[in-house]
């Protein structure tokens, strides 16, 4: 009578095991997706820009996110205020999700929420 329930328990335990496996890898390569999502969570908007624009922003002292270097090809990701991004003519807004446009961008500028320093 409870065979189906038993199967669901087995499936649930398998998912828990897989999640534990992912947790143990959180500081390794597999954990990069959490780290990227965590950075993106802090952003109110994202813009694809040429990497030399990112280099310019870094030179100005804006915060660079090291998670971008964990990808291949690497991504240059930096936080900058919206007013500064507005000065970059080539900046193209991309949806804030792990979609094609964001993942294809080699240079990303993120604008912080107003409460972020």
């Amino acid at each position, binding site marked *: *009578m*409870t065979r*189906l*329930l*038993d199967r*669901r*328990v087995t499936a*649930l*335990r398998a*998912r*828990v095991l897989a*999640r*534990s496996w992912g*947790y143990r890898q*959180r500081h390794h390569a597999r954990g990069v997706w*959490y*780290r990227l*999502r*965590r950075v*993106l*969570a*802090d952003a*109110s908007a994202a813009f694809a820009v040429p990497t030399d624009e990112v280099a310019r922003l870094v030179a100005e002292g804006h915060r660079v996110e090291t998670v971008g270097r964990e990808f291949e090809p690497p991504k240059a990701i930096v936080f900058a205020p919206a007013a500064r991004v507005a000065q970059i003519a080539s900046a193209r807004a991309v*949806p*804030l*999700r*792990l979609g094609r446009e964001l993942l294809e961008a080699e240079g990303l500028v993120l604008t912080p*929420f107003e*409460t972020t320093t």
Partner: protein
Amino acid sequence: MTFRDRLLATIEAARPVLEEPDVLVVGSEVPNLLEPGAAATLVVSQDLDIGVPIHCHAAVKRRLPEMLIRFHPSPEEPSVWTPRSPDLLEVNFVGIDPSRDPADAYVFEDDLLPLLVFGALSLLTAGKEIEIAGTRVRLPSPAGLLLEKLVSDRTGEKGDRDLLVALGLLMAVGPADLDQVDALYAALRPEFRYAVRSNLTILSLLEQRTGMPDPRPRRAAVVALLRRLEQIDGGAA
């Protein structure tokens, strides 16, 4: 007949069980019932989850015959009671065992009402009691339900919708509820805390789904909760 009408009719039909002490309505219908006037505007699955603490299983079982007029147990899955009328929703009984680890699950064997006991439901505590369709319904505290939604493994379309339900709860909680979230979160093992934070990052990047709250204008609230929880971890990444 609207979904809300069916939800309310189901609650009325399940009254014998729902009015047993310590029985909770759990799952995705809770935010629907918490809306003003139980407006039930969120699009979730067409069932009513009833949480049965293991210690009151026997009492619930005694009341089940009163529900047989309106429902019958599914032969494939006896913890699901299917309605005899299309005007009602399925009733899905799940077990709550406060002594269990959130990662655990087991089958509570019984000839009439076996239960799948989800460890994550151990995070639930009884919240307010409301009267709906002439039935006293006990809801879980929003903090516990929010954390249960965030600690559970969520995948696919249903997983995304469950996270949007968590968002609906987040928008409804007050400062006292958030303090309770803090306390529950602090008591979790590091792996589960990571799961909560990970699910919050997924929630922060979700797109809008039909019939669900648009998460994009609420991203600041999501990251605010994330930062709050990171403070408890000492700024853990």
